[in-house]
């Protein structure tokens, strides 16, 4: 991030190559269109540059910070459209290999993505729904509880448990190919 903050083109390219696909995908899921998703990518990188000197590594990983900046912008976009509810759709497009990445890096990323998707499918319906409402729709746990018809404590537990289960999935050893 220091190099990015110092306006080094190479650092900007690295940052883009690492995070653009997840930011773009977030835009597709939350904002529902390719145009809005592309705008989200551009707006996110602009915000990352303008706040680069505010990133504090001691407070968390760069990846989390970048994703939450993008998500915050996407939620602002949603609020501007005064949308109260969305049907979340996946595009169904698998992650494609970037021409800039080497084969080992592609394989590792796809392995991680596969494990992540398996972890998502391992969540209960309730956990998945609560997490999607909290993450993609920016709902508070109280709003999740109301929408799902569950107690507040249950909503909090489902969101927390879902995130911890997903994290455990990445802690597992990759399968031997």
């Amino acid at each position, binding site marked *: 991030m*220091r190099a990015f*903050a110092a*306006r080094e083109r190479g650092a*900007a*390219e690295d940052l*883009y190559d690492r995070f*653009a*696909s*997840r930011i*773009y*995908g977030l835009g*597709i*899921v939350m904002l529902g269109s*390719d145009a809005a*998703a*592309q705008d989200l*990518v*551009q707006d996110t*990188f*602009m915000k990352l*540059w*303008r*706040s*680069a*000197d*505010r990133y*504090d590594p001691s407070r*968390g*990983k760069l*990846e*989390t910070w970048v*994703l*939450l900046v993008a998500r*915050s912008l996407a939620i602002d976009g949603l609020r501007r459209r005064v949308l109260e509810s969305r049907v979340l759709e*996946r595009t169904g*497009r698998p*992650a*494609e290999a*970037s021409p800039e990445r080497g084969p080992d890096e592609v394989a590792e990323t796809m392995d991680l*993505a596969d494990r*992540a*998707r398996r*972890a*998502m499918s391992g969540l209960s319906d309730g956990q998945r729904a609560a*997490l999607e409402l*909290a*993450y*993609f729709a*920016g709902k*508070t*746990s109280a709003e999740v509880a109301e929408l799902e018809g569950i107690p507040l404590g249950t909503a*909090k537990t489902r969101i*927390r448990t*879902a*995130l*911890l289960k*997903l*994290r455990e*999935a*990445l802690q597992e050893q990759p399968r031997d190919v």
Partner: protein
Amino acid sequence: MTCDEVREQLAEHLLGTLEPPVDAEVQRHLRGCAGCRRDMAALAEGVSTLALAAHDVEPPEALRDRTLSTLEDEWTTDPTPARGLGRRMMWLGRAAVVVALAGALAWGAVASSRASRFEAAAHKYEAFLGILGGENVRVGQFDSSTTQQFTGSVVMYDSTVEQSWVLVLVRAPGMQGTAHVTLRSDDRTIELRPIEFEAGGEASTWLVTSSNLKAFDHVSVWGDAGIIATATLESD
């Protein structure tokens, strides 16, 4: 808050959906609890996994050049020095200024002024700090969120070395009692000392800190029924 209470709130704190006063309490607890910080780091890894699973989609190739070109345009037109390099500051001199200003506030010099002088004072502070390093000064005007008349200003001085501070000056005719004031960034909230309205509805609060305040760009004033007013801090 206890660790059990904080753990219940950590997911929402991470996702930024907690009410600011509660968020500030969680933040305060995390600063002093390694165990809860580890718990939060685990949840953050869950967010990363979710991102990989749910929304990792390769964007159109043309977007890469477009985004990087737009960044370069921004770099070309942004007159500030490359961020992170900073200038060497006369720390003792600036710290002395901050202490003097904080002292003046503590003596009630500002609290006894009328609202019009409050706003003039805020602009004078801005001009004064501009002499010291204007690119680190930000100001904001409050917009009322209710039918209550509410005016005021926020001045924030971001220091690249040590002390940063923020000054909040407001006037709300007819308001009594106290209200909470919070500073907010994308992922953090800091609670300032509460403001206490005087007979004319004037009130003030401030914060002097060694923390970096550059990420904070919203100031909100809260009553029992919710937000009373909000100011957005604009850069020079």
